[in-house]
């Protein structure tokens, strides 16, 4: 048990250390002082405002990670998250700005609409996969590009509000925006957005659905062995559709923290590539609801703290290099710790056998146990 926890912790720690090492190499190669870069980043990163911003910025990353993980657990690679949240965010911005209802009604409806639209956008790849045998990867990529165009057309010709260079939808008033969860009151902009609650709820739902329900079980079976699933009475095609719908629904929420909490409208400032960072969070956290939360927080922390680098004549790209490297090093880190763990398990087993004397051979080797 202690070993399990140690292994679980060692993975991320080794990953971060590896990423630091590689980034240091790059910085040194570029003729910069890595130590001062990290020091500056760390000092800025642990300022209260930065920490709050980290938490808030981790929310969309977490949602993106969960969205990807939801499909990944069914063996589907939903590379269309970007398109799904883009379309959904537009719908959400329009609803939140225009629905003549009080906040307590408007907000849930907005969330729901976003889920629906995101799910609908994900339905296209799902249906094509089921009825046409077309890989979801290719249709998702196409749907991303199409989403951009559809949003552009809708925005330019239907929902654009106001004039000038700003091409956003109508401004969302306080009756449609996400209220703050708490204001820590320790300086400028230290309010934690209500979306933290949304993220936690999504995380819990993800956990319950995927890990605790019969439905989640059927998804797992369908992913690992479609034939066995069909024989057991699990309709694989339906699971594919449900998994994509679920993934799309969660993806639909990704853009909302920005729309309902930062820009208060849908406009050109909507971040466009949350999917990959979110996927990184998912991979860092091994698709586990809590692991992904840590992954998202780490990435958001790095992103935020690297903003300060320009001040010390260091390239701000260090942040993105670090984030990219940590993605890889997380995989490598887990690999290293797992290997080490298997070794230890083997030594332990041999020692136990020696001390216990000759026993009948046990068919299940401890090494296999640990590899799970």
């Amino acid at each position, binding site marked *: 048990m202690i070993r399990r926890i140690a292994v679980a912790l060692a993975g991320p720690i080794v990953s971060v250390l590896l990423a630091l090492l590689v980034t240091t190499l790059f910085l040194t190669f570029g003729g910069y002082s890595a130590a001062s870069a990290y020091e500056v980043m760390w000092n800025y990163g642990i300022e209260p405002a930065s920490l709050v911003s980290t938490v808030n910025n981790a929310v969309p990353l977490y949602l993106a990670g969960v969205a990807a993980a939801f499909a990944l657990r069914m063996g589907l690679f939903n590379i269309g998250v970007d398109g799904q949240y883009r379309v959904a965010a537009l719908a959400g911005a329009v609803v939140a700005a225009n629905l003549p209802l009080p906040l307590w009604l408007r907000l849930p409806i907005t969330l729901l609409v976003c889920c629906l639209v995101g799910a609908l956008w994900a339905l296209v790849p799902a249906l094509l996969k089921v009825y046409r045998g077309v890989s979801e990867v290719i249709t998702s990529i196409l749907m991303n590009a199409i989403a951009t165009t559809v949003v552009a057309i809708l925005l330019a010709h239907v929902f654009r509000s106001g004039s000038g260079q700003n091409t956003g939808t109508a401004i969302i008033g306080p009756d449609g925006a996400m209220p703050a969860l708490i204001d820590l009151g320790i300086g400028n902009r230290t309010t934690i957005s209500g979306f933290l609650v949304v993220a936690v709820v999504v995380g819990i739902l993800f956990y319950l659905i995927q890990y605790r329900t019969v439905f989640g079980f059927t998804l797992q*079976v369908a992913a690992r062995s479609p034939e*066995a699933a069909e024989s*057991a009475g699990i309709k694989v095609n339906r699971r594919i559709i449900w998994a994509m719908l679920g993934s799309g629904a969660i993806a639909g929420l990704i853009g909302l923290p920005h729309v309902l909490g930062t820009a208060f409208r849908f406009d050109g400032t909507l971040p466009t590539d949350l999917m990959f960072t979110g996927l990184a969070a998912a991979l860092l956290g091994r698709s586990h609801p809590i692991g992904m939360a840590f992954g998202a927080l780490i990435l958001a922390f790095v992103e935020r703290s690297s903003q300060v680098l320009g001040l010390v004549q260091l390239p701000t790209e260090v942040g993105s290099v670090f984030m990219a490297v940590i993605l890889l090093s997380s995989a490598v880190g887990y690999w290293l710790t797992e290997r080490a763990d298997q070794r230890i398990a083997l030594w332990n087993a041999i020692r136990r056998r020696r001390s216990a004397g000759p026993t009948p*051979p046990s068919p299940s080797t401890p090494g296999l146990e640990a590899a799970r």
Partner: protein
Amino acid sequence: MLVRLTGIVKRFGTFVANDHIDLAVRAGTVHAIVGENGAGKSTLMKILAGEEHPDEGTIEIAGAPHSFRSPRDAQQAGIGMVHQHFLLADALRVWENVVLADEPGTALRLDSAAARRRVGEIAAANGFPVDVDAVVRDLGVGGRQRVEILKVLYRDARVIILDEPTAVLVPSEAQSLFAAMRRFTEAGAAVIFISHKLDEVLDFADDITVIRAGAVVGRTTPAESSAPALAALMVKVAMPSVAPREVAPGTAVVLSAAGVTVGDAGEVPALDDVSLEVHSGEIVGVAGVEGNGQSELLMALLGRAKHSGTISMGDADITDLSTEARRERGMAYIPEDRHRDGVVLSMPLRENAALGYHARPPVKRGPWFSRAGAAGVARTIISRFDVRGGDPSTLASALSGGNQQKFIVGRELGSHPKVLIAAHPTRGVDIGAQSAVWNELTAARDEGLGTLLISADLDELLALSDRLLVFYRGRVVGELDPKTVDAQVLGEYMTGVRGQAPDAGSRPDPEGAAA
């Protein structure tokens, strides 16, 4: 001695799979290796074939010591192995699979004409009718096995290892395999083969080595031994046998198919207008060479294949019901291919115990999946069916094939079904386990379970069935009484020599068929 293994030890982690095994094989002989599931037979053969490295011990081929670092080394020493689970690239052609990694031609050009010619020649010389240009995906089990053997022959093997070659073959295919084995030995090669079917071992082997728990426990020859004696060496149970039934079959029809046809429009249907009935407390056997519609029948009964005609359970028409609904009504299923259909190898036994029974208690509690419930089911199966080598948290892949099979049988019978559709329930299972499975099937039968039994093992069919249907080209060509039929007649039905009357298959017609 062509092959001499001395003191072979192989450990996996702390587990000793081979424990100081000595083995000697003479040129020009067939050497059989028998032993229960997990005894270490395949491991030993993989060591000989250069796929595993022994921790201790020596390998001598024709008197010369060898240390194989790769399968390539073993092949160069003249050793070829046909795996229990075939190692073929489905998307490639027969000749491509055969010549792979040993192709004729230059670096920049593969001489496909020469390759195809050579493969064709070898096939012809050994009496293997295969289309060298066929894509392996389209071949049946027998065809695939022939490709595997061609791979060995193409590399001029002097020692040919066959790991459970007959487990998947029907008798006629097995016969032609044994004929081919004879040809190899007459040409001076040695054949080592592993089998759980003791009668064929006694019929065809020259020498027999018995392995238990990684160690050799006996060396004998067919002349000096008998099936019970071998079984006694291998395991501590008697030969599987079925006591004469005491409870008469019921009269209620629990499963019936009427005019069921499976197939694409415009093509010869794979299953052609089949009608059959299974009564409560009855085991109906289905005999037939593999590929004569049995798989399609299974898929149709299970609700996984589109078909015309009607299927009923009891009085209820279930034609339009999903697999899930059918299972809900008490249909249990032991699949043909346990790795593909029966278990999810990467999941623990706990989850595998829930497979197919996830929609009912104790696994399902409201919307929740009860791990405790599933673990309880798994534990019950493990203890009741003597599944060895795991607890509910063990991955299914860590179980030996025979134990996986026992687990599946236990899961399906443990659910108290009304109807059991069982395909090859003892395939690849050692005789101890086989006897256990047979006992379970007859016990369930006596409690009123109606079973449709599809098997390639004629002994099994004859021992267990109350009635026997013979399939040929997707039709039922005869209904026989297992107590009176002789193997010769059965074989003629199965190969289409008999029972080809135009409408023989449309209705079970015992009198006409048995004549």
